[in-house]
């Protein structure tokens, strides 16, 4: 090949190479742009939970409704008791929920945490101090409930917390103060009638809640988030097909979105208790004494009527293991 022809050949090859490179770059750019512009939905940090280990391991058996300590009478702050320690400190520290409507939520109007659970705490503060306001509320997530009790950063947890045999090995509970049941919340146009109908679909619950087990049992895909309101966000954005947890919590979510409905039977029995560290049996007995007063003097019924509504059922009967 002579010099001019080689030169021409080189030029043609170069031009072809440049053309190919440009075409590839343009195509790549188009692909990237497509990927960037389609199918992008903002999501809260959701974790698709593996089937909880609890479901498979042999759960300890117990009578969770009759596991608490019998009060010796009306609540009294005895010298040297944990109640005396709290009284000396000047306020009770309660771990509560801040996003569960009607049980524990931060009222945006007055910036106070309010709800049925919170009423229980105010009653205990009144029994210790004579003043229901002497409480420091610490809003904690579902996941922190046991840990915060065990490390002593809170005195008591009032957080729609079910008494389970597994939890009883880690913390003590008061007598049952509320009877809840796990159910399912879907958008009002959903055709599903129960959790089993949602097999293979995503169902939301919070991290660390015991609702995840039932979801996995029904062969739905559990999705877990930090707060229950995060579940409602995902339901509204069609990122999950349903939310499944205690009817109490679901009622609170449904109250924030009229286009949702509760479906299916009571899947589980969820007896709520107030959690207290195992080192303080005196405080457990004290709290049970307070709860007994609430059951009998009409305060329990008043709280129920105020937060959940009428008709008011009979309060869960107190049963004790000792």
């Amino acid at each position, binding site marked *: 090949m002579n010099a001019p022809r080689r030169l021409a050949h080189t030029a043609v090859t170069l031009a072809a190479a440049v053309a190919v490179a440009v075409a590839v*770059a343009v195509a*790549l*750019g188009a692909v*990237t*742009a497509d990927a*960037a*512009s389609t199918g*992008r*939905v*903002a*999501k*809260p*940090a959701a974790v698709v939970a593996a089937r909880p280990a609890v479901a498979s391991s042999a759960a300890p058996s117990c009578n969770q409704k009759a596991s608490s300590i019998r009060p010796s009478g009306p609540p009294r702050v005895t010298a040297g008791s944990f109640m005396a320690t709290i009284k000396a400190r000047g*306020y009770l520290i309660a771990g509560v929920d*801040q*996003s*569960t*409507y009607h049980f524990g*939520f*931060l*009222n*945006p*109007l007055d*910036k106070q945490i309010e709800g049925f659970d919170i009423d229980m705490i105010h009653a205990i503060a009144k029994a210790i101090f004579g003043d229901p306001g002497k*409480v*420091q*509320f*610490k*809003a*904690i*997530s579902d996941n*922190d409930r046991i840990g915060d009790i065990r490390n002593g*950063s809170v005195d008591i947890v009032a957080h729609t917390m079910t008494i389970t045999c597994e939890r009883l090995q880690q913390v003590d509970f008061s007598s049952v103060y509320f009877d809840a049941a796990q159910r399912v919340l879907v958008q009002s146009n959903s055709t599903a009638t129960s959790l089993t109908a949602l097999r293979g679909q995503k169902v939301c619950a919070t991290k660390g809640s015991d609702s995840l087990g039932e979801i996995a049992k029904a062969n739905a895909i559990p999705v877990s988030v930090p*707060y229950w*309101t*995060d579940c*409602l*966000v995902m339901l509204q954005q069609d990122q999950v097909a349903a939310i499944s947890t205690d009817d109490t919590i679901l009622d609170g*979510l449904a109250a*924030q*979105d009229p286009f949702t409905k509760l479906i299916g039977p009571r899947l589980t029995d969820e007896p709520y208790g107030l959690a207290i560290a195992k080192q303080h049996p005196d405080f457990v007995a004290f709290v049970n004494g307070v709860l007994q007063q609430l059951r009998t003097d009409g305060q329990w019924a008043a709280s129920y009527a105020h937060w959940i509504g009428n008709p008011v059922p009979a309060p869960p009967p107190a049963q004790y293991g000792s």
Partner: protein
Amino acid sequence: MSATAALAREAIRGGERRTPDALRGLLAVLAVLSLAWGAVAALTAEQHASAAADVVAVSEPLSLDAEQIYQSLSDAEATAANAFLGGGLEPAAARQRYQADLAAAAKRIEAASAMVGIGAARTEGDLTKLSADLPVYAGVVETARADNRLGLPLGAAYLRQASDLLSRQMLPAASDIYANEDAQLTSASAQATGLPLMVIAILIGLAIGYVLLRTSRWLARHTHRVLNPGLLVALAAVVVSLVWLASAFVIGRGDLLHAQQYGSGPAKAFARADVAALQAHADESLTLIDNSGTDQYQGNFLTQQDLLGPGTGTLLADVAAAPAVAGAPSGQAVTDDARAWFTAHAALRAQDAGGGHPAAVNSALSGDSATRFAALSTALESGITAHQAVFASSAHSGRDAFTGLEIGMIVASLAMVASCAWGLTRRLAEYR
């Protein structure tokens, strides 16, 4: 050069009879050399001028846009979260600031998209991502506001989602654009201030001047005339063009380096610190909204606080290292502002942990923490503005130093050819 010397030697050896031929040869060589000088000098001038123009016209606005996108988005997040703390009754000023932030971000994204060139696929992809995410973000924030206004706890969940979208997807993209555009600016600036080509051009110019000098001395000996006016003019032209080229380069380079060292470099340090402070401010509000004690947002706050410093290798250390310019706060003042805010924040956290949630919210909304943060943010932003102004004025004068240089070099080389021809043809005419 050696060709000229050989020609000259040959001319001398050839004696009188060969002189006209030698003169013709000399003229040809001088013409070629003059044109070559013109070409090299003009090319050099063009390269530096276009690189300097690139800095001013493309790289600077792009990196400014990138910085503004980054800052506006961070500010939008911090403001939205802070306004949310006020409950259903948002402070009007916060609302306006949030809207101004979104408008600024949208405008800058559009401007940057229009300007970003082919080959900047990465920046283009990031910009596309941002334009897609911005309305989604704004939509989620509005849902949060609507729910908050209804007094529903759901609002906080939407705000968490918006914040998550911004800090996990949008800010990394904005940061990426900023890093890319800053690198682009640095490389364009390096091109404009680079030495090698300029040194070669100046050496060639000096060599041509030397050849002209030798030629006129040879001519003086052989034609018994002291000076050849044509060659003198050519010599003057090469000296003038050399001086112009060299001084334009020295001045332009000095201005561009000044623009970098006193302008874009420190502005970047201030901007990085500002964004970290804004992020921390958003985290402070989100901790109060989340209201679950020492949560992930407080963790994020402490991460940003560590990034800010002060201390070796921190963002505030970079700010303190910035040279002083008019209108920019001193490094010490900024550090003091940051310390004051961190102290106020710690007090706020202690209040919140001690059951004083409403008091803590007040501190973040309009109290001590809010005031301290505003002072820090204002100081950092005035630093950004001051250094960016220095950058703009220095970069502009750096670019202006190269104005007309290319044409000047071409004209000078043509003048050299013409004057050599004029001078030598007058000598040649004497042999006819």
